[in-house]
């Protein structure tokens, strides 16, 4: 199934480098030949203080406070590797709200 990597591009995440992160993630996904993965910008997940935020959908993994050096592990996960536990620290109620919204197609 196609996996979408939503990278928040709202002010806080952007200030913390999410634009460069998105570009780099896209590059690495292409390099690895992950054809079923699409990297896309997202308006905001509401976890600005924990940004930059990346949500994998429909898998529903949420990585917070992502840095350049985390991208290898994230692409690894996208290629079938393990979940990156250290980046999974968002409150479950916010996760649920955002996942439900994504389920209704708000991209």
């Amino acid at each position, binding site marked *: 199934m196609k996996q979408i990597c939503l990278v928040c591009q*709202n*002010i*806080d995440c952007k200030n913390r480098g999410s634009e460069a992160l998105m570009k780099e993630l896209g590059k690495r996904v292409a390099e690895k030949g992950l054809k079923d993965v699409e990297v896309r910008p997202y*308006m*905001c*997940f*509401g*976890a*600005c*203080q924990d940004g930059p935020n990346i949500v994998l959908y429909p898998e529903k993994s949420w990585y917070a406070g992502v840095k350049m050096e985390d991208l290898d592990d994230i692409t690894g996960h996208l290629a079938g590797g393990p979940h990156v536990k250290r980046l999974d620290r968002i409150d479950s*109620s*916010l996760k649920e*709200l955002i996942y*439900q*919204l994504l*389920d*209704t*197609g*708000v991209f």
Partner: protein
Amino acid sequence: MGGILFPRGVVEGRERLAEYRLRGGYEALRKALQGLSPEMIIQEITDSGLRGRGGAGFPTGKKWAFTRECAESPHYLVLNGGEDEPGSKKDRLLMEDLPHLVIEGVILASYAVGASQAYLYINAEYKDATRSTAEALAEAKEAGYWGENILGHDYSLNILAVAAPPNYVAGEDTAAIEVIEQKKPLPRQKPPFPATVGLFGKPTAVNNVETLANVPPIISRGAKWYRTFGTAESPGTMIFSLNEEVNRPGIYELPFGTPLRFLIEECGGGVKGGKAIKAILPGGPSSAFLPVQKIDLPLDHNSLREAGSSIGCGVVHVVTEGTCMVEDVLKIAEFFAAESCGQCPACRMETNMLAAMLKKVQQGQGGQPLLEQFSKVISFNKGKGFCNLINMPGPPIESALRLFRSDFEFHLAHGRCPEH
């Protein structure tokens, strides 16, 4: 119009000092300085039941008492003429046409709260109001109504006008304080409220223009007289703004408790083109829609609250039959998304999210589950911002969904408006 503020209807052009004096202008100030202590003024305003006209409806006497009783000094008074509510023009017209009434209110309020410095915070786009206020300030100073030893008494007051950025959050009271401190118009976290920790960290009363315009008549004629207008819980009059949807757009000063129908039909001359009314948004974009069946509702704080809406600052938006509620509410959601100052993450997310969700509905995407998400997003974010903006998109969106769900369902099914 024959109200409290506009006794002879709207003045044509600025009322000069001489004209204002002819109808008893500055007599309230003279009366106060000659024999009323600040505490007595506050008591009179409390007894009158005057409530803030900027939207929240907070009792003015109570607000003043908080500031007055604060031991910290100095105290400040801020006239909030930011007036950024879309469609509202009452404060602009008061400042343009009746600047002396407003200024006398400012001086009385400053005296009551113990301020020796007052700021007039006026929307920078209001060129006429700014000029009119400046001219009136000069006239009033010349006549000894403000400055050193007002009218020979030992109370002194300095007044300074400050330009208010014309964006929505800049009208919020703590954002106004930030601007006066020469910072960006960003609301502060509350509490502490500005009444005790405000301008430069000192006790500050921030009052709306219309609120302060009510003060001279109350001090001149007394709380008992004032209470002959309006209702027990909402005494006096309120200035309502009607916009292009009616035959006679404009501002109308009416006693609280006047039926909504009177405002729309008698004052506004009914809806343009004789169209039927579908819904009414009685208190600006942050109030809840009322169905047309509520058109005989009295316009006062309690009646509107009981009907699930609010009176706000009196901007009444009439939605006519043939208007799609999805489109109407989308405009409101996009307004709040654009006006969110962005400093609170939850507000930024919520306002953007709601607008994006409505856009999806408009395009016929998301289905029923998406409609269920609105109340979840709204309740998740409730109260999570410094100011009230985060709570504002909720009432119009949720009421529209409740009252006009078929418009939303039509959009989901067909990707277009039902009436087009």
